[in-house]
Every structure is written in structure tokens, then in C-alpha cells.
């Protein structure tokens, strides 16, 4: 266990735990966009910045990837933190003017768009946090999508910006996306479209509901060696 101070409170955190998890475990809220319990944090959205000081030196760090240290003084709401967070939000708003989530967070914190930052028109709602890519890789295990290019032209999508062949249509990327950039459409008649690829949905043997793409079920069947036939029942009828 290590002892540290967060916002003036003495806190004990397990060794190797991040400042973010230590703060949250003690009811201290730090805003995040790209953080997800199921995935390794990467500190890409920069929303979780906090001010840490030790031995008279103070600096700004991303709390989701900064490990708790003995004797560390953490401030999650200082003037400096607020200013950095405000700037991060203004940049995110300029990049993704359509994103309701970013706008909502900004509104909560009383941050207004900075007119000096030119708004982008072609970035959609994507903040390039890589959550979808990581989920596809380490949770689903198919690595259908990735971030291509870099800098101004960095973009999420399938290889060659085409419908990804490896995609099984599970929709994990849609669920995990913090800003709702990725669109998945179910037409209710047995088809699902995502990443420009159309999937045939499997019908539940019991209730007749279209519940999952056939490709996803055969992927699960192959991975778990459960016969496909026994997977053809939806979660509510199982």
C-alpha cells in the first residue's frame, strides 16, 4: 500500500494502481473520455489531467496512466488543472463540433468553444482515442479496424478504408466509442450494417428475434468449439 494525498484527503492506494482508480475508489470524480475498465489505459483524450507535486515540484500528468506514489500530493481541481482541461475540451470541440458528448461535458464544466480554433468538418465525432481499435483487438480478437495515416489525416477504419473483411459485426466498437462516432444500423429485417459491411442476422430459434450476426456466431463457435446450432438462441431465451 502507498499513502498519498488527493485533494487534501489522505488516501491509501494499492501499489501499481493509477491515480484515477485511487481517486475514483475514494469517491473523487475525474472526468474521462477514453478510459474503460476493460482495456489498458493509454491517456489519449487528456481529459483526466491532474496536478501532482512531490518535493516542491509541481506538474500536470494524465491520472489514468500515472501510478500512485508514496507521499504524492495530487490536486484534481486546481486552477491549472481547470485551465488545461478547458483547453483540451476546446480542442476536442473544434475537432468534433457534432459530438453531443463532448459538448455535454463542456457545458457541465462551463467551457465555451474557442473561436480561434478552426472547426473541422470531416472528422465526424472521432477523437482518435483508439478505444474501438483496442476493443476489437484485445476483447473481440479480430483486429478488423485500425487507425491509419497520422497527424491531420489520421482516421479510424478498415484496411484501405474499405469494408473490413475481418469484421464479424459484433458492434463492440460501437458500444465502446465514447463519442458515438461509429454508426451501426439494424434494419429489423435481418440485416446489420457497420463499417460499410452488411451482415445477415441470425434468428433466435425460440423467439424469432434477430439477435446477432451469423458471422459473429460462427466466430464464437470456432473460438469456443461450441456447435453453431446451440448458439442459435438469443440471450433472453437461453
Amino acid at each position, binding site marked *: 500500500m502507498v499513502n498519498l494525498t488527493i485533494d487534501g484527503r489522505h488516501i491509501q492506494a494499492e501499489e501499481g494502481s493509477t491515480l484515477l482508480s485511487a481517486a475514483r475508489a475514494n469517491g473523487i470524480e475525474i472526468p474521462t473520455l477514453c478510459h474503460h475498465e476493460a482495456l489498458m489505459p493509454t491517456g489519449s483524450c487528456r481529459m483526466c489531467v491532474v496536478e501532482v507535486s512531490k518535493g516542491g515540484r509541481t506538474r500536470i500528468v494524465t491520472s489514468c496512466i500515472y501510478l500512485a506514489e508514496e507521499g504524492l500530493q495530487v490536486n484534481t481541481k486546481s486552477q491549472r488543472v481547470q485551465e488545461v482541461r478547458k483547453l483540451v475540451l476546446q480542442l476536442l470541440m473544434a475537432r468534433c463540433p457534432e459530438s453531443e458528448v463532448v459538448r455535454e461535458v463542456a457545458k457541465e464544466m462551463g467551457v465555451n468553444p474557442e473561436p480561434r480554433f478552426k472547426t473541422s468538418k470531416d472528422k465526424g465525432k472521432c477523437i482518435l482515442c483508439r478505444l474501438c*481499435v483496442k476493443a476489437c*483487438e484485445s476483447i473481440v480478437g*479480430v483486429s*478488423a479496424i*485500425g487507425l*491509419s*495515416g*497520422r497527424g491531420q489525416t489520421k482516421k479510424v477504419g478498415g*484496411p484501405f478504408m474499405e469494408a473490413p*473483411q475481418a469484421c464479424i459485426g459484433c458492434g463492440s466498437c460501437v458500444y465502446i466509442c465514447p463519442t458515438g462516432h461509429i454508426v451501426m444500423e439494424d434494419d429489423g429485417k435481418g440485416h446489420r450494417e457497420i463499417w460499410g459491411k452488411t451482415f445477415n442476422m441470425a434468428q433466435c430459434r425460440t423467439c424469432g428475434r434477430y439477435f446477432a450476426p451469423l458471422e459473429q456466431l460462427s466466430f464464437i463457435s470456432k473460438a469456443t468449439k461450441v456447435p453453431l446450432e446451440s448458439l442459435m438462441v438469443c440471450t433472453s431465451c437461453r
Partner: protein
Amino acid sequence: MDLKAITKTARDTIKKYNRDHSQIIAILQDIQGVYNYLPKEALSVISEEMDVPLSRVYEIATFYNSFSLKPRGKHMIEICAGTACHVQGAANILDRFERELGIKRGETTQDGLFTLEEVRCLGCCSLAAVVRLDGNIYPFVKQDDIPRILKKYKKQEVK
């Protein structure tokens, strides 16, 4: 281009590097050395043979400026746009090349002879403004030199 040849080149290159994952960039460089660009099929072969997701290979191929996924011309014209060359009129030189060749930066002429690229500092600022053509450095380039430089390469083609 011949699909079989591309597959063979890719396979041979992968074998040369012992399927080592850390050598993907070297493999891509070797393949680009053969074709002047990275054919789509080659990336698929790398993905399959080396058991690396295609999305990862594509990420690498698009991250580095030196890789191109579009076919490039036989001769590569690189105009330095670093600070020293910029001051010596790199923008005008680039303009003139665009006019002479009838293409924009990043494009390839229809006859497949020339590809025009704007690059950052080539590391020989004392020779500004610099143009690199197929790896040969042309120092102190002025707009009026450009037709002569191009002529030399076009002449080679006729022979």
C-alpha cells in the same frame, strides 16, 4: 501488375527476414524497393503469412511518408521545402515543376515517368534550394534550370 509475381516477391521477402514481426518495416521497404510502391496484395500476403492483422499492416504502411500505396513514377522528384530552401524560393520551384509536368504535388504523370513530392529538409541546407531526383541532389536550383533537368531524364527514356 502480375498478382503471382507480387505474392512471390512478398513471400520471398518475408522469408528473408525469418517472419520476424519486428522487421515488418524492413519488409515493406524491400517490397517498395521492387515496385516503387506497396501493392495492396503484398500487404495482404504479409498479413496472412506473418499472422499480423491486415489493419495493423495498413496502419504501418500509412504512418510513414516514405511508403506509398499508390503506384509511383519511374523517377522520383523531391522538392525540399525545409526552411533554407523555402527562403531560396522552394515554393516557386515546386510551382514550376507542377507546370512543366502538368501535375500537382503528390501526383504522378500520366506516362508514369515522374512523381512529384514535397519533402522536408534533406540535410544539405548549404546547397539550398535543393531538388532530389532519383536520389541525386541538384543544388542551387533556379526556376530556369528545371526544363533542362527534366529534359535529361526524358532523353534517357527515348534512348
